[in-house]
């Protein structure tokens, strides 16, 4: 302990703080907390963990996290005045729009819109969403104030109303209030020209995790104009998203955030747990088919004899397990097609004993679709076998 420390310690040692805890407050808060804990049912907790771990919402979360990183480390960073200025400007904005891309020059896969203080809209623009093609064509509208979300399927013209995912709320809360995400460190890195703007870069990094975000802020406006996020997904793949076209205080029509099902859309009942697992399974199948494509390109157009042949491509056991039926050893049925298969030929489908509302089916064009009717599935399976 140096002189300053000793002196200060001595100075404060005689100061009397009125810091005796108030036991009435403690007891009342205890009751409130138990109430809050009781409202968090085990099922809700389970769902939350599933959501966070799933690659689909990982993407959505990545998009939203990309938003939130605009604001993290406000208290912790302190590395430069410029970063503080950037944060201050973000705080002062009332609306925000941006695009998410896999690479800077690639077409956008998602458009996001935010209205302070509680409305979010995410439009999944492309079917080529990494690891989550099923999200293509979907629109998520989230009212964090009401803790509700409307999910629109613009292709099938169906919609569902469901509880807003807690992770969304948490991320949004972070975005506005700088509270939850304190586990990043920030450092100023570089300057570069982006379009006609000179930008300064800040690297945000999560310790002990392969997770890094670089924020490029306009030196003139002190607002972010580009963000690059890199992280490792559950399968150990390094994923990257780029946030571009960031606009603060854009004029946004509130009707875009309505939770009322739009005209022409059929409202479907939403079974959260089932839906999540179905999407997770489709995501696994998408990964398997992409691995097949790699195999095919390396083997002169020949498909693998079985899925075990794909092991050397780091196709792990959990990818081959169907989350809808985790106890089943072989989660998916693989049908090896001829060297030049028809695009519509079925090559992969979820193993099942009893038809229960539909299954995910993978085709030789490397796409995955959900088929609801067993008769349709059997018809297509028959056609695939006969080579039609």
């Amino acid at each position, binding site marked *: 302990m140096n002189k*300053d420390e000793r002196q200060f310690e001595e100075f404060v040692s005689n*100061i009397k703080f009125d810091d005796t805890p108030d036991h009435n407050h403690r007891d009342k808060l205890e009751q409130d907390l*138990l109430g*809050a804990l009781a409202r968090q049912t085990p099922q809700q*907790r389970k769902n939350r963990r599933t959501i966070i771990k799933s690659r689909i919402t990982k993407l959505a979360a990545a998009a939203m996290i990309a938003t939130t990183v605009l604001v993290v480390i406000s208290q912790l960073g*302190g590395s430069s005045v410029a970063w503080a200025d950037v944060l201050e400007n973000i705080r002062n904005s009332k609306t925000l729009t941006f695009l998410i891309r896999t690479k800077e020059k690639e077409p956008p896969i998602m458009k996001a819109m935010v209205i302070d203080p509680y409305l979010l809209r995410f439009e999944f623009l492309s079917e080529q969403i990494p690891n989550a093609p099923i999200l293509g064509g979907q629109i998520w509208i989230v009212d964090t104030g009401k803790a509700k979300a409307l999910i629109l399927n613009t292709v099938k013209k169906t919609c569902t109303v469901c509880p807003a995912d807690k992770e969304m709320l948490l991320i949004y809360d972070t975005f506005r209030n700088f509270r939850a995400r304190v586990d990043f460190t920030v450092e100023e890195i570089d300057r570069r020209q982006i379009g006609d703007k000179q930008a300064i870069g800040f690297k945000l990094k999560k310790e002990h995790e392969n997770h890094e975000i670089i924020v490029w802020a306009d030196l003139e406006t002190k607002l972010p104009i580009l963000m690059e996020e890199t992280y490792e997904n559950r399968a150990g793949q390094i994923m990257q998203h780029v946030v571009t076209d960031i606009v603060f205080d854009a004029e946004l029509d509130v009707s875009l955030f309505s939770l009322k099902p739009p005209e022409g859309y059929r409202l479907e009942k939403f079974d959260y747990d089932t839906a999540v697992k179905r999407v997770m399974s489709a995501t696994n199948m998408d990964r398997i088919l992409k691995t097949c494509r790699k195999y095919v390109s390396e083997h002169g157009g020949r498909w693998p004899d079985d899925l075990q042949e794909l092991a050397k491509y780091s196709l792990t056991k959990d990818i081959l397990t169907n989350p809808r039926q985790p106890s089943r050893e072989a989660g998916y049925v693989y049908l090896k097609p001829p060297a030049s298969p028809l695009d519509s030929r079925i090559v992969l489908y979820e193993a099942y004993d009893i038809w229960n509302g539909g299954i995910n089916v993978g085709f030789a064009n490397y796409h995955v679709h959900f088929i609801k009717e067993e008769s349709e599935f059997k018809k297509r399976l028959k056609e695939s076998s006969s080579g039609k």
Partner: protein
Amino acid sequence: MNHDNKAANNGQLITDAPVKPEVFVQLYRRYYDSVFRYCVHRLFERETAKDITSEVFLKVVENLGSFKGNERQFRNWLYKIATNAVNDYFRKTARRSGILKAVCEQANNRAANCPDTRDESTKKLALLREAVFALKPRYQTIITLRFFENLKLTEIAEVLASRQGTVRSQLVRALAKLRKILATEFTDYTD
């Protein structure tokens, strides 16, 4: 914060708390006083400290299921949440300087009009508040954690997700600034 429970030390309390209310209560009671005191020491004010303490534990309930770590990390996590909540409070009220001014003036007036033996302590408290509030929030956090919560530099570094060396140098800067302010008022606080 006490570390007198073996079960708590191995993290069992923390693991069980999200699903067992009686365990959660045990954990809550173990840390309530520390969080409250930390808030009082940051805010120099009891009522707001109560509100912030409530906010901290509500956030704990929301996120306890996803917390992974031992008891020491849990304690640091609480300080981290509390630090953010206090800083957020300062920012959101946007009246920090106004509050400070009003509180300090009130305290100084009280000290000036109080002839009994407590006046020196009251005056010191008012000056301390003024001096601490003149620091950046990060420095305030470091000073509070170091001198009122008695955390080691390594622990403060963990709370702030920073390096020990960085915290050390920031502590030195914060103390230098405090000395400058306090030395003008107290002859026993000299260069």
